[in-house]
């Protein structure tokens, strides 16, 4: 039976949605799973731990259209410190956009890492609308796909899966606006403040003309 190492590659791993996705995976996996965050200081320790596993699941968010730099740093360390027995690598990725296909490039980066470094590639689950979906009634759709991912890995029947909120783009836009507005409210920041077009506050010209 596969023994699965679940590695969270999110830069905010302890508070991340990826952690919640990883927990769902562990819940549905009949294999033994062990969960790890990537921190700035534990790369070598994780490379050492990997020796004990036959399967490796990376769980992470899409960042600037690719894999997060936290994960990139770790992959570079892993490249220099590989385990003797290389596990099969699967990927569970989420993005905040509606279209799960926006994850495709990041998944292909993971495929390239595996190809260049001799890791067999396993399954993929691409989640769209992944920032909020776990707190909506559509959570059940994600849970179903994660269960399918876990079952496929258990049987070594590798597959590419995807899931997102079953909404039109316009409906998603409205729903995401409500989501982010409420997120700001928790910090006492209004929607109007969040919509500022200014970057790092007013520019020099605006500062000069600002009335006393």
């Amino acid at each position: 039976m596969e023994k699965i190492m679940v590695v969270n590659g999110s830069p905010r791993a302890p508070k991340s949605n990826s952690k919640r996705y990883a927990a769902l995976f562990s819940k549905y996996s009949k294999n033994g799973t062990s969960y790890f965050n990537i921190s700035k200081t534990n790369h070598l320790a994780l490379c050492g731990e990997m020796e004990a596993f036959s399967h490796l699941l990376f769980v992470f968010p899409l960042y600037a259209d690719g894999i997060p730099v936290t994960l990139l740093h770790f992959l570079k360390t892993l490249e220099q410190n590989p385990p003797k027995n290389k596990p099969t690598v699967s990927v569970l990725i989420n993005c905040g956009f509606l279209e799960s296909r926006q994850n495709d490039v990041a998944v292909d980066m993971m495929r390239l890492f595996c190809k260049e470094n001799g890791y067999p590639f396993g399954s993929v689950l691409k989640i769209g609308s992944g920032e909020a979906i776990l707190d909506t009634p559509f959570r059940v759709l994600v849970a179903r796909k994660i269960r399918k991912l876990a079952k496929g890995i258990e049987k070594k029947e590798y597959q590419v899966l995807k899931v997102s909120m079953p909404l039109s783009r316009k409906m998603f836009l409205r729903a995401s606006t409500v989501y982010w507005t409420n997120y700001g409210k928790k910090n006492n920041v209004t929607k109007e403040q969040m919509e500022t077009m200014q970057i790092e506050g007013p520019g020099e010209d605006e500062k000069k003309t600002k009335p006393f």
Partner: protein
Amino acid sequence: MGCFGCWTKTPGKCVIRDDAVNVYPKIAKSDGVMHVSRIKYGGYDTVMKTMLERAIPVQQAFIRILHGETHHVQREVLPKKAVIIAYGEISDEERDVFQRLVARNARNMNFEQYRVIFTSESQLDETVQREVAKWKK
């Protein structure tokens, strides 16, 4: 860093007050950018990738529809002509992934035009100088 502070706590400002806060406003105000980076696994290597991730304050949390896809609303970000110089030992597969990455970046970083140039490390300085010279014309 994924804290969403620049979207929901201090909109338009990164909560980490280091050199990045001097760089991303300049990127936003520029109508031309040149990214120079080694390629790793079909993407930018860590230095450039870190900068791109730290530039998230130039976007809002809110979503818009662009070219039939959902993307973040941009703040005051000028449309740009981008030259992307990618170097290293780059396989055909890596080139393909990187081209698709930059095509995605174009939507999220407001590139109105872009060119991707692949080169070797030994040819890098020459390539950059040639491209910079084109800007000076």
